[in-house]
């Protein structure tokens, strides 16, 4: 049999991948130091870095030019994390389906759809046991969440390998075997599906279960191979092009999952063939001379910062080093309780209405009979119509300001949303400047009832235009978002794209970072304003007069008194010093974006609108469209009222 070896093909012109072996959640605590360094260097914010470092299996940490990734890789290695720098891998072929097999003392002979393949004793093998349905991955996540809930974040850990293997075999397992040649490269690849091959070759090992036979082949491979690298992390590992799909992703989802599995297998082979960064550095001496100074610089910078104690989140100034979002204050707690009370009242009202309760029925009948109900409806619609009309005109009448020259008061600004804090949406984990999450639960009548609501109104963000940026405090704003995600069940269902179909549903509205934003609110300056230079000069001169020692320094002729000329000199000298101090303080003071903030106007009649839009036109059009039906309803309700009243009076 002629032996053919396929070598890993990569395209050097494409971006390099930095892949890291992720840590289980229980070991994430030890990452604080690394995350701080990553954030400080400006590569990415700490939250994103944590997401990429914690989990199961290999994880794509960063992608880019090799020279930019090497310092990152060295830093990861320095923190005892295994990582690889590889070029993107293009699979040359998919593993061939196994039809039958024959086991001998020295080898296992596989007969595949593409021809025979031989696994000789001592041959290196990369094996991937995967569940293409996503059920095992979901189970793993459920397990993780349950542990987190009952034993705390520190104890949370993924399923042990044996348990995960069992979960995969109980779902829809596929076993891919990559037979590696001694000189590197792939000699052949086999895809084994339960029930897809003749188990007779297993002899006494054969079982009645397809998954059991698969497990037997896996055991045999382990015993025959010289080194067998088994991966159970397909669907859990964060690698490019290896995402699990489900039926909602289209009719080809199963085919897509098998293709993803092939990509995953080839990536693992590339990782197995490639050396880790430190090993490569030791072998070639490449990193030792060229990159050690960069790392030293990072570490030195870190040491310098740490001497000043733990840095407050606000002091982080490097681009990308976003501090964690602030926690919600007392106001939010109050709002939360008010919301609950309001929700309970509304729920009670709805239940009474649905149940045909006598009291509510009586109130409605009375309102209809007297005409109070349609009259209230008419007034409410008229008032709402005028509210939207006023808002529409206010938006149209307010010219757009530039952030550089914002005047205090009601302002309209347009630009790009930029995060001030490392805020991510709780369900979709998308970096965003604002999110609103509502969770619903199905009640006894099979209707969705709001069970909880939360938002990131307490987290400020920046709005950036051509001239600069300004801080926006979205507390109590009317936020119009255009990005909505819906899902059933918990976060794990969302992560694996499953419909869940349970009794829980969530809706997440968010304003993703980088989108166009329109803001209408009140600009205010905050922080203490220093007194004018003239006032400070007067104070300094008064202090000078009270201090004879300081005054004597200006007595140039030594006659014991300050003449007019000497006083003028003292004054000029003090003025110059104050000017220098003032300019130095101005240069060191907070950046302009942190001096002005746009927030809810103190005058309650003024609007505070944040809309995900590049222009105000769609907003005004929307408010215009709200007005028309409201006015029409008001008219009809008024007619209805008078018909009721007229009918009664006869």
């Amino acid at each position: 049999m002629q032996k053919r070896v396929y070598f890993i093909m990569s395209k050097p012109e494409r971006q390099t991948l930095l892949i890291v072996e992720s840590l289980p959640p229980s070991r994430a605590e030890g990452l604080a130091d690394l995350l701080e360094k990553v954030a400080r260097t400006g590569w990415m914010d700490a939250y994103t870095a944590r997401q990429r470092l914690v989990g199961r299996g290999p994880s794509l940490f960063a992608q880019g030019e090799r020279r930019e990734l090497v310092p990152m890789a060295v830093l990861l290695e320095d923190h005892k994390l295994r990582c690889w720098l590889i070029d993107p891998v293009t699979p040359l072929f998919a593993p061939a389906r196994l039809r039958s097999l024959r086991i001998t003392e020295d080898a296992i002979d596989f007969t595949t759809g593409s021809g025979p393949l031989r696994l000789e004793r001592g041959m290196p093998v990369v094996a991937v046991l995967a569940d293409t349905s996503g059920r095992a991955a979901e189970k793993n996540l459920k397990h993780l969440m349950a542990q987190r809930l009952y034993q705390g974040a520190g104890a949370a850990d993924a399923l042990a390998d044996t348990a995960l293997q069992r979960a995969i075999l109980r779902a829809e397992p596929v076993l891919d075997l990559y037979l590696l040649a001694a000189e590197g490269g792939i000699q052949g690849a086999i895809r084994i599906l339960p029930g897809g091959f003749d188990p007779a070759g297993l002899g006494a090992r054969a079982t009645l279960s397809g998954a059991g036979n698969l497990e037997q082949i896996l055991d045999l491979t382990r015993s025959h191979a010289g080194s067998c690298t088994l991966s159970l992390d397909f669907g859990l590992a964060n690698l490019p092009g290896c995402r699990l799909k489900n039926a909602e992703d289209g009719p080809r989802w199963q085919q897509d999952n098998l293709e993803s599995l092939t990509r995953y297998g080839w990536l693992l082979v590339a990782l197995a063939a490639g050396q880790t960064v430190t090993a490569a550095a030791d072998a070639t001496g490449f990193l030792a001379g060229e990159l050690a100074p960069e790392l030293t610089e990072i570490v030195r910078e870190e040491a310098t910062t740490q001497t000043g104690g733990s840095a407050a989140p606000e002091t982080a100034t490097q681009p990308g080093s976003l501090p964690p979002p602030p926690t919600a204050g007392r106001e939010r707690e109050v709002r939360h309780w008010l919301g609950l009370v309001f929700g309970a009242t509304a729920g009670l009202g709805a239940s009474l209405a649905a149940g045909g309760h006598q009291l509510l029925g009586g109130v409605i009948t009375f309102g209809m009979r007297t005409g109070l109900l349609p009259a209230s409806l008419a007034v409410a619609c008229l008032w709402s119509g005028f509210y939207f009309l006023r808002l529409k005109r206010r938006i149209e009448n307010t010219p757009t300001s530039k952030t550089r020259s914002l005047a205090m008061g009601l302002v309209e600004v347009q630009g790009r949303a930029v995060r001030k804090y490392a805020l991510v949406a709780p369900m979709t984990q998308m970096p965003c400047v604002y999110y609103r999450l509502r969770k619903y639960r199905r009640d006894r009548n099979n209707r969705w009832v709001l069970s909880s609501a939360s938002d990131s109104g307490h987290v400020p963000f920046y709005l950036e235009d051509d001239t600069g940026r300004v801080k926006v405090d979205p507390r109590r704003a009317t936020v119009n978002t255009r990005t909505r995600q819906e899902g059933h069940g918990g976060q794990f269902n969302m992560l694996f794209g499953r419909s869940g179909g349970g009794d829980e549903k969530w809706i997440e509205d968010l304003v993703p970072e980088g989108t166009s934003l329109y803001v209408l609110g009140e600009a205010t300056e905050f922080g203490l304003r220093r007194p004018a230079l003239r006032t400070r000069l007067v104070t300094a001169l008064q202090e000078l007069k009270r201090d004879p020692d300081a005054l004597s320094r200006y007595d140039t002729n030594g006659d014991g008194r300050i003449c007019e000329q000497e006083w003028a000199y003292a004054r000029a000298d003090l003025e110059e010093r104050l000017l220098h101090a003032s300019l130095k303080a101005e240069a060191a003071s907070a950046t302009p974006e942190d001096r002005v903030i746009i927030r809810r106007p103190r005058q309650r009649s003024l609007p505070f609108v944040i809309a995900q839009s590049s222009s105000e036109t769609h907003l005004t059009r929307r408010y215009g469209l709200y007005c028309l039906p409201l006015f029409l309803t008001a008219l009809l309700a008024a007619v209805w009222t008078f018909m009721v009243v007229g009918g009664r009076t006869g």
Partner: protein
Amino acid sequence: MSALIFLVILLTILVGTLGYIMVIYNGLVTLKNDIDKAWSNIDVLLKQRFDELPKLIKVCEGYMQHEQKTLEAVVKARSMVNEARGDREKLQAQNALTDTLRSLFMVVERYPDLKADSVFRNLGQRISDLEDQIADRREFYNDAVNIYNIRIEQFPDLVVARFFNFSGRELWRIDPAHRQDVAVGFSHI
């Protein structure tokens, strides 16, 4: 009964129309006051620039012993701003001050020591930032005037504007001298 319904519809439409007129009227009043505010906000920045000038002149004096004329021109323009009465006069004084400042910064090029002075650099940057902000606010003022002028000429605001004697406002006009082309000559090179 049908007459009553007709009356109710009429009454509701009347209430709606009155409400609409009220919204238009209030909107126009807000716009008119916003224009005044936008104008005053330019003044705020002009005042800031005015206050920064003594500091700038003080720093320059130490280096520019031979440029007394230029410095005096700035001081004179500044005092003109202080003494100006009426919008037109104020505008002219501010324009004159801008011109003298421009001359001052051109002359500074001849004094590398002064250019290297950190205080001068900070002050120069601050005044330059203020100039940019003033330009932005003038643009903003023009936007506000433009919206107002369009409103009072468009139906149905036109009716309310005519009834309540809302008159148009003038846009910011620059000094005609600034419209002239810059004379560029390379004869001295």
